[in-house]
């Protein structure tokens, strides 16, 4: 039952198979399998405490995988150090403390690229996606509004030219208009640059407006998955996510 396997390993950018992980003796993520193709967006849905963030952290290498595999373009990256994963184009956006509040916007963006000189060339993309970020270049990131901070987060991921983006609840606390903007940027990034995006969300409308496919995580296991466009989606979600 666990697994979204409508892609063969050959096409998958990110392939997760039988992944389990947790903290100390506690297992939080249990035997999770899925894959994402280039240009595809998968959203993991589920309530708090179900293991969504843990799953992202395990893929990124922050938490040791107890078993299972994680493959990037076919090569195993499970339990590789996070900084190596980051350099190989995994862009991870955590839910909390995701920007350096005491650094300037520019410095935050510089941290997204491996060499400072690359930033200039890639600023165009940021300007196109979020003009306001480019304007606040020298401002301390902590002084940005909540929405602007989220834009900075995405901008930082964009300048790193990722193959895969792992994004943890980007929509949380945002105005509806801002949520729409985020959705647009994510869709275009995935479509135009072929980035595979793994979203973790609780905001259902946003999730469904962005993702190609969904998977529902309950107590660490994937209990349901499917195409967003499928006719059953609404019913399935209703069954799993509402009381």
């Amino acid at each position: 039952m666990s697994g979204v396997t409508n892609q063969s390993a050959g096409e998958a950018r990110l392939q997760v198979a039988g992944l389990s992980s947790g903290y100390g003796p506690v297992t939080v993520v249990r035997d999770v399998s899925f894959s994402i193709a280039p240009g595809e967006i998968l959203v993991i849905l589920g309530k708090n405490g179900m293991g969504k963030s843990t799953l992202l952290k395990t893929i990124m290498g922050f938490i040791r995988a107890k078993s299972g595999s994680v493959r990037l373009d076919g090569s195993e990256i499970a339990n590789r150090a996070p900084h190596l994963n980051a350099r190989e184009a995994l862009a991870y956006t955590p839910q909390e403390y995701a920007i350096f509040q005491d650094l300037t916007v520019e410095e935050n963006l510089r941290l997204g690229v491996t060499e400072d000189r690359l930033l200039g060339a890639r600023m165009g993309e940021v300007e196109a996606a979020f003009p306001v970020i480019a304007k606040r270049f020298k401002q301390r990131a902590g002084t940005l509004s909540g929405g602007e901070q989220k834009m900075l987060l995405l901008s930082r991921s964009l300048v790193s030219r990722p193959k895969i983006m792992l994004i943890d609840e980007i929509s949380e606390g945002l105005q509806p208009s801002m949520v729409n903007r985020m959705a647009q940027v994510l869709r275009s990034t995935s479509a135009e640059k072929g980035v595979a995006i793994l979203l973790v969300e609780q905001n259902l409308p946003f999730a469904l407006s962005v993702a190609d496919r969904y998977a529902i995580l309950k107590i660490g296991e994937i209990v349901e998955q499917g195409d967003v466009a499928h006719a059953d989606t609404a019913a399935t979600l209703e069954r799993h996510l509402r009381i």
Partner: protein
Amino acid sequence: MADIPAAGRVPDATRRSSRQVWRTVLGAAIALAIVATAPLYLGTYMTNVLTRALFLAALALTVDLIWGYTGILTFGQSAFFGIGAYACALVFTHWGFGAGWAIGALVIGIAVAMVTAWLTGLLSFYHGASPLYSSIVTLALPIVLTQVIFSGGRFTGSSSGLSGFPTYYWKIDTWFWIAGVFLVVAATFAWLFVRSDYGRILIAIRENEDRCAYLGIPVSRIKTALFAVCAGIAAISGFGYAAFSNVVAPELAGFQLGTESLIWVALGGRGTLIGPILGAIGIDATSSYLSGNLPFLWNFIVGVTFVAVIILLPNGIASLITGAWRRYRTRGAGGGDQPRDSGIRLTAAPSVRAAAAAGRSASPPIRIDGLTCRYGSLTVLDGIDVEGKQGQLLSIVGPNGAGKTTLMRCISNGTERTGGTVTVAGTEIGRSSPQKIVGLGVGRSFQNTSLFDSLTVGDCLRLARYRIDGARPFYRSETVALPEPALEILAATGLDQRLGVETRYLSHGMKRGLELAMVLATEPRVLLLDEPTAGLTKPERTAIGHVLTRLAEEYGLCIFLIEHDLDFVREISNRIVVLHQGKLLLDGTVEEVVSSELVKAVYAGQDLEATV
């Protein structure tokens, strides 16, 4: 050893503990026998060397109590040793010599050391002090004291110290016996102490000081008292050292001796008592032997061994032996995660229901007015007003970052909030420390299950009873009296069958259960629970939900519950408070909250939870 006659009369239930006492006494007797006979075959030189080493071993013993058991890295224990030594030398040199003077000098030494330690404790063990700060103060202590001695001129003998003052020119064997008996007595008491109720508290402080405070344990006071007592013991050994060797010098109070004693303890094995004693004796005696001929090589070897032990064997060389012993034992008896005979019996505490009934008429259990909390420019809570009523289970919901956990913090620790008042059963909490607020009847559980890893379930429960039942300094209670709901949780989770298991081996669910049982053991009137069911299985949740409902309904507790699982909330709660960006959005019944347009508006298209 005042406990021993009593141990003879204890009833069956405490047989195990009395066995513990007898075993200790037997060990002490063997040690005394060794001390008594050692001079007969050691020869004058070794006796001489070992007499000094025995006094230093007593110093190491106190360092182990402070650092090994309680986790306070102290560089300054030598200061107290020096105070004792100088009390002896100064009195004998300048005022007089004789039995009366000797006792007077000893008393002065102990008193000065203990007062100094007490003042140091007041300075460095306040609630919220970083462990580094107390280390800094203990580092400053010997440096200042040495300087005082240096500037004492003829009175203290400055750098040369004092020597040749009148003292008891007993035979070296006699001195050896004095030192040996002193060390054995001190070690025996220390041995019983660390195995007593109080000893568990020391370990609990080392492992999680903050949690201790939230169980109502007066951490600062206990640390200060321990520091003072250890200072007294160090002063006695310093006094003995000076009287025996007939010389004192500033180095006896210095920073170098302070760090050296850390090295003895680290090499011997911190938190073992025996290890540090053997470490001190071994290193001091060997350096007497070797340093004459190999001063630099010897220091080099000590340095390399020290660094290697710290990195590779954090529990000291003793851990090689005890580790092997443990492995040998567990091969027969099963691992540490197996339930063992804990020697602890649970009994029911006098019913809290009666107590709750008695307090029913008074003011509401908790009242919060205009509570505000800011970190710099960030306002986490803004003017919250809530009143908790007896028998009410109040759930706090809201998205991440809404300020739910901060609210708990501000209630349970008087120093956290920046504005507003919190009144618990009619008493304004002011700037009280967590343990005082626990005393008012507020119990708090934490989001992360960070318990006391190396304590057993039984130890943890007894720890939680400290505020009510106290603790005995040289004796281990065999029964833990718990209020009924705590017993129920233990029974429901099967923890009552695992009282002897160290908590690190517990499953997540059991840890949650133990956490809750511990909070209930403090007999709170107000219960603050931060996601008590996070990560639990469905049956476990149901069990805990059941207990919570009963706590509110039958025992009249006022419960504040942070919970994400709205299914759960709906099942057990009769009132919901919604927080959003630090503000109280709504306060009402489950139905009111669900149907609220305001909540919908804020959460619109955003949060599944609010659409319950």
